[in-house]
């Protein structure tokens, strides 16, 4: 047995395409019963919700952003006479008109004060009220309450860990670029080499599973997610990065907004009929300062915006309890004041798509959260 070729010809048949899409990191997938789908997108770096979905109808808006400010026709598309959308998201207008795209404004996690990305993302993904209260992700904890939920067959690999899906339930992951193709004997040898070290054993087993997956290395995370969501997969999660726009925000957002609109339109275009039963929730760790800073950018803030898309909700509206952006209405005189907990949006998405009950949501998935009334987007 030992005289078998250990690695495949060519010094291992690993995918040669490295890091096809560095802006898109890991994709996690899971299957479940029923036809409803949920996609969670983490916008890492803190999206400027106030700028991307600008309250141009608010009389205090223009003064906050002397150079970054936008108005309809000038970098902004009017949505409802009060709010506009950055014109670079124009590809999403058909979704808006079809009521398949919505914004929930002035939301945040319970995170306050220090405005650290890392703590902010930690809270966003663990779904608890204070940093350190949990080391697993809310989407993973939700898994236990979803009937028939199971990790999908043999998918893949992620370049980095994603706290949102980390925990007791096993999510399979996929990222563009790498594949380890092994035949049975090779797999046996590798399990002998790695068997005594659980971390390595798990990693190599999952990497070996790739051999049954014919993912195209160049396929984007959204395209791959769309394909699998139209098959057996019911839950997918991935991140879009680069939203930390401290300087030259206008150009810094070019790639981010393109990634966002391409991700959403790709999901819609490639999921076929399944799009009707899909809810996409895009969330970020916090918003950015109401005023622009000295470098045509914005610094870390508090209240921001969440994005909803898909056929499984009533879009075409900007939701949320708008606090205004006059000086006394700002949080600590500098940030958009959060008027709702973004975890409620996520919780109601789980309730709507997978029937999670109030008790499970308030006790296990988002401990201590008050679910409140059914949101208007679920009408």
């Amino acid at each position, binding site marked *: *047995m*030992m*005289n*078998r*070729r*250990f*690695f495949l010809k060519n*010094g*291992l048949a*690993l995918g040669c395409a*490295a*890091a096809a899409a560095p802006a898109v990191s890991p994709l996690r997938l899971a299957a479940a019963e029923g036809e409803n789908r949920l996609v969670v997108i983490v916008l890492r770096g803190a999206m400027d919700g106030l700028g991307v979905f600008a309250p141009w109808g608010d009389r205090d808006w223009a003064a906050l952003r*002397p150079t970054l400010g936008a108005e309809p026709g000038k970098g902004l598309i009017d949505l409802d006479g009060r709010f506009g959308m950055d014109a670079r998201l124009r590809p999403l207008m058909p979704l808006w008109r079809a009521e398949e795209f919505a914004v929930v404004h002035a939301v945040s996690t319970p995170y306050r*004060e*220090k*405005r*650290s*990305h*890392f*703590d902010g993302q930690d809270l966003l993904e663990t779904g608890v009220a204070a940093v350190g209260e949990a080391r697993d992700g809310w989407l993973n904890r939700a898994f236990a309450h979803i009937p028939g939920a199971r990790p999908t067959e043999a998918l*893949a*690999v*992620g*370049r*980095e*860990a994603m706290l949102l899906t980390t925990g007791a339930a096993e999510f399979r*992951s996929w*990222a563009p*670029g*790498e*594949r*380890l193709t092994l035949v049975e004997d090779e797999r046996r*040898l*590798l399990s*002998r*080499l*790695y*068997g*005594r*070290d659980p*971390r*390595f054993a798990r*990693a*190599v087993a*999952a*990497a070996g*599973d*790739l051999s049954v997956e014919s993912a195209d290395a160049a396929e984007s995370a959204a395209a791959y997610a769309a394909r699998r969501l139209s098959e057996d997969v019911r839950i997918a999660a991935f991140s879009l990065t680069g939203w*930390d726009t*401290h*300087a030259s925000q206008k150009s810094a957002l070019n790639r981010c907004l393109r990634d966002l609109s391409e991700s959403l339109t790709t999901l819609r275009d490639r999921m076929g009929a399944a799009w009707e039963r899909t809810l996409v929730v895009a969330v970020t760790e916090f918003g950015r300062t109401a*005023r*622009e*800073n*000295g*470098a045509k*950018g914005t*610094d*870390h803030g508090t209240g921001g915006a969440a994005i909803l898309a898909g056929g499984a909700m009533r879009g075409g509206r900007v939701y949320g309890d708008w606090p205004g952006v006059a000086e006394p209405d700002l949080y*600590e005189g500098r940030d958009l004041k959060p008027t709702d907990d973004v975890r409620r949006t996520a919780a109601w998405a789980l309730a709507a798509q997978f029937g999670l009950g109030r008790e499970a949501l308030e006790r296990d998935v988002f401990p201590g959260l008050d679910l409140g009334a059914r949101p208007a987007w679920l009408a």
Partner: protein
Amino acid sequence: MAISRETMAVRRFGYGFGPGEAGPGDAAGLMADLAEGAAATDRTGAAGRAHFPRLAEFLEMRAGGPEAAMTARQTIGKVIQEEFAREGRARVFRAATSRTPFFDRLSWFWAGHFAVMGKAIPGRAAAGAFEDDAIRPHVAGRFADMLRASTKHPAMLIFLDQNRSSGPESPYGRRARKGLNENLAREIMELHTLGVGAPYTQADVRQFAELLTGLSFDRETGAPRLLRERAEPGAETVLGRSYGGGPPLMSDIDAALDDLAAHPATARHIAFKLARHFVADAPPEPLVAHVEAAFRASGGDLPRVYEALLEHPASWEEGPGKARQPFDYVAATLRAVGPDADEIDGMIALDKAMEPRRRLNVGQALRRLNQIPMLPPGPQGWPEEEEAWITPQGLSARIDWASRVGRAFAARWDPRDLAASSLREALHPDTRFVVEGAAERWEGIALTLASPEFNRR
């Protein structure tokens, strides 16, 4: 077999064994390695002299309008990009062939602590000088001096937008209607000194950002300077202490940095990070407390801090240890097989004259392993936890790299000898079994280098 202290010193605090390497032996030997590394360090800013003229040339050309900017990117910008990639490869071989591995491991640790990211072309032009000029001269010095040097280095000022922050009430700020950028101030407090759990507030961040206004650098030399035109007038209060108030002075900024360096929260933060980097993802509390005490007692005198780390028994306990990060892993594989000087030159230059099988591309390998030198994911530096690195994808890329090294060095090594010389008593019977059973030499080498014990330290 129990692992000896000699082997631990090389694996845990260095880059593993090269052929016939004796290693420093024990803690005293590691401290001697530190002193030797420090003595050999350039303190004249040679790296900056090599990098900043190119940066100045690029900035000047770019300022000449859109067309000139395009030309700048295609000419000098291209040179900067290529040099950045070449430097990344050279870093790997500096580690792989280091005569002072502990010093170099510490230098990498600190460069990650004060992470700068060579993002756009100006960032790349400056990043290559950062570790050599701002970090290495202080690795065996005082933390406060390293903090001053890193804060004022052009790579840091560019990366965290400090060069674009102005006091709103400064002459320039009023005239050009420019204002603060909080980025550097926040990350110094959150990441470089106090740590996010420390008792500082948004108001402290804001005040510190105001104090830092005007901090800039000379384009030609990279030397720090204070642009008074941009400095916010008036005193600033950070953590209850007032700074400045008179004309803007660099000494006010230095005083605030020194106070942050001396804050008890900083001692705790640094002690935890050092113990986590060298010993365990979740370091034992007594070890952290011991290192913290040494930091406080010595006023951040780093050799005393490392000494405390090395003298504590928890640092020498066997156990799963740490997973080597990709940079350390690739360096360790090359150190183990021992390329000669010509091969090293060829691999740094990606010399086309070299036989393709032997021309290993460490830059490409690190890209696939998700750890490109000088391109950490953000100001927080590289993740430490093994779950961030030993992923299906990460392990696939390690196995691939190990098999490439195996093919490149198959003619030079009997795999059994390599396993013995690189792993010593850390070699596990299971690994020995599969290595001995390998059908070809390169496979045996690959298995040795892909083994769990080679990936750990």
